[in-house]
């Protein structure tokens, strides 16, 4: 399966919030939809789920128009909510039946997922009596009970403690391994880095960056090195780099414990290393710079505050 989103535009009360969002994702891969609050992640997901209609643009599945109602989709909306005064089992079976499962199938699936998520003991408890974290797990069970081909998770990690987050991580990994098509939005870059092959960064309704995460990281780290001097203070080292190394590099970023430098055109890493050794500067760090997703995200979507 390949899901392709093409040039989505959406306006609310005359204000355009999506300015032509496009991306694609295929089965067995996870797409991380990243962006700050109000970037348009949830709106994009809701258009995918047919909660909203786009003003223009199209969504295709294997090249044909996509209709959410015709696919088995597990959806965890950003606005979490079920029936607080209903038993966990009662409402999960109801929602699974609405999505096509028979009663016994739903019951079986319920048992599996409650057990898998460690909340089997709450099967017959009212939802409102559960902690927030466990209510989140019930929501996740609801999402996955119908064994969906497409899993769409909007901010799945929000409100989860580290233990529950790691359970969710495992579950998402399993979904990917099972060949499901996974789309999820998140603020937590570490999770995205861990299991997303592709990312889309939205900023004010525009796609500011998208593609294969490894490739993006590589491109961001290209021609950049990390430098830290052992004997010099950061100020002395900075002065040295600016005054004596400007023919080889320029400082790209200053960090508390190191500098990220960008090599000039045609300069090799060994050229810099030779000069540093020649100048007898004791080095604590000299390595190729690998951009983290947070770095990439901040550089693309961090123009405010």
């Amino acid at each position, binding site marked *: 399966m390949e899901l392709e989103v093409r040039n989505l535009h959406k306006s609310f009360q005359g204000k355009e919030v999506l300015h032509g969002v496009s991306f694609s994702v295929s089965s067995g891969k996870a797409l991380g939809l990243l962006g700050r609050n109000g970037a348009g992640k949830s709106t994009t997901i809701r258009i995918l*789920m*047919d*909660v*909203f*209609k786009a003003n223009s643009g199209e969504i295709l599945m294997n090249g044909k128009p996509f209709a*959410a*109602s015709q696919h088995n*989709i597990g*959806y965890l*909306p950003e*606005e*979490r*909510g*079920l*029936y*607080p005064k*209903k038993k966990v089992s009662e409402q999960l079976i*109801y*929602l699974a*039946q*609405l*999505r096509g499962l028979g009663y016994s199938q739903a019951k079986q699936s319920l048992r599996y997922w409650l057990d898998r998520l460690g909340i089997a003991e709450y099967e017959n408890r009212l939802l409102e009596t559960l902690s927030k974290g466990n209510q989140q797990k019930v929501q996740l069970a*609801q999402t996955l009970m119908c064994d969906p081909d497409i899993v769409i998770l909007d901010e799945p990690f929000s409100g989860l403690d580290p233990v529950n987050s790691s359970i969710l991580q495992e579950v998402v990994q399993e979904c990917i391994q099972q060949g499901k098509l996974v789309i999820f939005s998140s603020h937590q870059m570490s999770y995205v880095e861990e299991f997303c092959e592709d990312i889309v960064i939205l900023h004010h309704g525009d796609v500011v960056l998208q593609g294969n995460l490894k490739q993006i990281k590589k491109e961001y780290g290209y021609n950049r090195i990390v430098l830290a001097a052992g004997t010099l203070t950061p100020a002395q080292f900075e002065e040295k780099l600016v005054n004596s190394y400007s023919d080889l590099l320029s400082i790209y970023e200053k960090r508390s414990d190191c500098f990220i430098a960008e090599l000039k055109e045609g300069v090799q890493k060994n050229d810099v290393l030779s000069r540093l050794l020649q100048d007898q500067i004791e080095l604590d760090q000299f390595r190729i710079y690998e951009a983290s997703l947070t770095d990439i995200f901040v550089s693309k979507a961090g123009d405010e505050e």
Partner: protein
Amino acid sequence: MKSFLTVLRFELKTMLQKRSFIISTLIIVAGSFILMSLPGIFKDDDSSGTSKGDKAEAAAPSSTMMICDTHKVISDKKLIEAQFADYKITYASDAEALQNAVELEKADAGFVIHNDRNFTYYVKNSSLTDMTESRFTEFMKQNYQTNELTRLNYNANKINAIYQSEITSETKVLGTDGAGNYFYTYMLVFLLYMMIIIYGNQIAVGVASEKSNRAIEILTTSCSPNALIFGKVIAGALAGVLQTAIIVGSVLISYQMNADALDHMLDPYLQIPSAVLATFAMFGVLGYLLFSFILGAIGAMCSKVEEVNGATLPIQMLIVVVFTMSMFVLQAPDGMLAKILMYLPLSSWMVMFVNVAVSSVSTLEIAISLGLLAVTTVLMGFIGAKLYRRGTLSYGNTLKLSQILKAFKHND
């Protein structure tokens, strides 16, 4: 269809499991049995009391009356004793003695007869329900008429018999027995009115609560809004019909159990013609569904449960107006107003069966009105579904009329 049945089953189960539903049904059922049994219980007590004592003693006068008739106006004392069998009658020698007796509560009522057409009534404390004076006036009138007829040499008994002769009659209703149908029509109208007011509001609250607890997004992405709104509204309507049937059934059963003690007082009102019942069932159910859909749609426009009461107020006012109009039609069934209201879907659900019960309506008129009501109800169901769907887009916000209209225009 499968989704609709799933929603219907879930919602119906939710409503029937509500504590408020179970408790209110049990209280009303128990209350009706207790109320209907009360006359029987008291009757039994009364009869057991009389069986122990002397019947003559039981019929003994409970009050005392003192009469001062110094001018010998009363021609036959047996006559007054017969008229006031519930009084022990004594005679005073003068007005002062009579007054003292009444004041000291030795007599409950005192009459000083001045002449054959004038008397004074003495009582310690007067009350609105005291009929003694009017009864005595009636007696004095009869006494005067008898005396005068005798004085004029007429046979008073014969003349009285002529005046009291009874005329018997029988009414053959060729159309609709409006007078006879009045009571149960009133009861059915009131029942329908109460059902819509009570259960309609519950449906609106049910829909709004899904929006406030955020389940609506999961629901609308899991099945069609039509299945959801139709399932919810019909479940609410069924719960209402079921509770009403239990309550009405328990009243009827308890009445049947106590009919003898109640002297079969409700029997004439329970003979409802099948045509009226059929019209009530068809129009009542459709009207109930129509307003349930309207109230469900209003529930979808509210962002919180607390907003529902305020938002449904205009519809409740409309229901009250229709109820008032129906009462008016019940009084004047053949007027122009009745003819107009029985075709308007917002009023026909109540006015039509009032018309059928107390007036003559042709089958064609009933069919046209029923068709209009059915189409409007189904249409309202789809509008409700659209609004319910639209409700998912406005978390935390109450929808404005302009947004609702825009939603229909742009298919948002």
